[in-house]
């Protein structure tokens, strides 16, 4: 330790920052969840599990939870699958302008989520380029209300989110594909395997461990869509695109009398439920692996 003190010195800013801005708010919210804390008051009053009881009976909380799950269930496989397909194509030496396509696909990743949301409200507007193209090509008779229709709003947000973050998942897959030795592909070709059999028997099995990690990373990302949802739809119309983060924000800051304790309880309950889902998923994967072995 005496010789390595400087390592701890370099780690200190990260530890302090992480502790102050991630761990402390997380732990503090567990305590706040047990308080009746109107946002105008300086402190709250301890009320035990009353917030959780109210939350359990709150239809809007379950609506936002359902929307978050739908978001996860559709957006993550779409992002992971599409990025894998693109990575396979862009990993081939025979693909022209590989570098250019990789750059173009990665560019949205470095843009700010809120700005993307604002720009896409114009792109998806009734008179915007997407609707113009759809109407002029006679695919639809009248403009599609992507963001103002309760049947379309959540899926529109999913589409924009996948577009924005596809590039980073592509990079993960490209890195994963680099780990597969070329000799395996050569051996497969010698044995007469075509493209599909190469993918099915060489690429896919070796990518499975990466699939678990990349899916997990993308799932975490899918639970942080507040900026995009707020700028695109505000959680509407009629709460159709309100995910849990927006519900928490609305309860904490948008209410007539802000309910900080109640919002914290929503955050805690959501965290517990997603933890339960993650554990169930991990157990399921372990069981599947055992079955395959």
């Amino acid at each position: 330790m005496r010789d390595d003190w400087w390592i701890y010195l370099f780690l200190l800013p990260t530890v302090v920052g992480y502790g102050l801005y991630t761990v402390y708010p997380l732990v503090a919210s567990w305590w706040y969840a047990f308080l009746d804390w109107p946002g105008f008051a300086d402190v709250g009053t301890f009320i035990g599990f009353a917030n959780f009881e109210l939350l359990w009976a709150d239809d809007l909380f379950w609506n936002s939870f359902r929307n978050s799950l739908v978001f996860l269930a559709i957006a993550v496989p779409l992002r992971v699958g599409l990025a894998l397909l693109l990575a396979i194509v862009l990993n081939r030496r025979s693909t022209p302008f590989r570098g250019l396509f990789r750059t173009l696909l990665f560019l949205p990743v470095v843009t700010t989520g809120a700005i993307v949301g604002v720009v896409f409200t114009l792109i998806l507007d009734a008179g915007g380029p997407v609707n113009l193209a759809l109407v002029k090509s006679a695919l639809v008779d009248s403009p599609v209300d992507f963001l103002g229709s309760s049947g379309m709003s959540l899926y529109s947000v999913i589409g924009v989110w996948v577009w924005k973050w596809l590039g980073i998942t592509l990079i993960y897959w490209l890195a994963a594909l680099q780990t597969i030795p070329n000799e395996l592909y050569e051996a497969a070709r010698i044995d007469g395997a075509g493209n599909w059999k190469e993918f099915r028997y060489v690429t896919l099995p070796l990518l499975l461990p990466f699939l678990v990690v990349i899916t997990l990373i993308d799932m975490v990302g899918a639970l942080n869509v507040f900026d995009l949802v707020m700028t695109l739809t505000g959680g509407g119309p009629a709460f159709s695109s309100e995910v849990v983060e927006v519900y928490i924000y609305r309860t904490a800051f948008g209410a007539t009398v802000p309910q900080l304790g109640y919002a914290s309880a929503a955050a805690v309950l959501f965290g517990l439920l997603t933890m339960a889902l993650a554990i169930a998923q991990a157990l399921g994967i372990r069981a599947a692996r055992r079955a395959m072995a």
Partner: protein
Amino acid sequence: MSTSTTPRPSRRQLLRTAGGLALGLPLLNACTGGGQSAQNAGADPTDASGPITVNWWDHFRPLTELFEKKLFVEYHRKHDNVSVKRRQLDPADLGQALQLARRSKQLPDVHSTAGLSGSVAALVTNGWFHPIGDFVDLGNSPMKDHLYDGIHRFDGKVYTFPVFSGRWHDSTTWVNSALAKQAGLDPEQSPATWDEYRATVRTLDQKTPDSVHGLLLPMKDTDYLGGKLTAFAQMAGAPGQTDWKTGEISVASEPFLQAMEFLLALKADGVLHPASSSLGPRDARARWAAGEAALFPWGPWFIGGLMVEESPAVKRGISAWQIPAPSTQRGTVYVAPASGSFFVSDQAKNPKVAADVLFQMTTPEFAAQLATRMDQPPILIDSVDKADVHPAYKKNVAFFQQDVRIGPVPEVRNGGVAKALAEMRDVHPSPGEIVQAVLTGSTKDYKTALQQYADKATKERKRAIDAAKKKGAEVSEDDWIFGNWQPGQDYTQASYK
């Protein structure tokens, strides 16, 4: 040739030293003050002779020039040690910023309360504001007749005063005069009834180019939609969301159903701008300014807001139409008395100076200047007639004198009501959210939805009253009943006695 015997540092040692310096320098900086001036570090906050900065946050975009180039500049001329630093935010952003700033003890000295939807009484009870009555003589100012207990004055202390008149609503239809003339209509002629209004909008939609639509009705903001529903219901005869004769929540009453049907009829007529469902009011104003629609119902600040960034739209021609009613027998829009717009925060470093800056807004001269900004009408309403304002703005203010009356406010009569209001949780879906759901096709049964809201809101009010009583407040459902309220008339200060 000599060789140095001083041992050279290894790469590890070099990194170690650099890292230590990089971490140590900011700490050293903090200890010595980082070279910042002693302007605030050494100044006595009660000594008005040292340099003082008054931090000011508000949401009044049309008043930017009036505040920053006139009010603050004139104050600085008289008190050269005082400068005012202003920040303007959208109402929703301001509410969030204020809540966060309060927690981190960084509240500005003066701020408006847009975005903090709770009652002023709740904020006063929780110590948000500094009373200003001891610093400035409001009792001998033009404001003295406009101060209400429970709105501006609490427990004998004055915390604020109204700058703007309360006599307004946000359902004036703003007309693109050029498009109206193109459709063969007189832009100065308001359609009086809902049927005439619909016919006029259809004419505008049909007799203008295809790229132009009749009406913008932004549906992203549910408060905006709730305001439309309530105003139209009041023109149909409703007192408001509460019936002051009985104290009941009346959003499921016949006038509200008629108002909902009117909004649905506009949608069914096919005259709405197709992007309406995904726009907020400010986006809609930009679309109106770009000539994409002929009409847009919004508040009195419309022209003032356009003048900030879209002044060509005003020069192109603009008119105001009076809020229509179901028939020629017009109802009345009831509003609360004008509330205070600005407050000195309890974290103000120089509350006396901050109050003094505020006090400059109580003069008739300031009211005349305020009127020229064409935001909400000033509290000293006579100044509008004398001010250099757009004719449409003047006409709209005259409409307010005809259509708007001051209604009763329970917390003025009984301060305990504020404690019950502080206990109340929002009921969802609210009337505005129901309108949004109906107009976007998410739900069709608005009658049931409005009745459910009325039932839940009644239950929630009772729960809040019981909770407030347990904390010692004296309040009951009877506090929402005003037996001496007369429809069509102002409920004045004398009426509370």
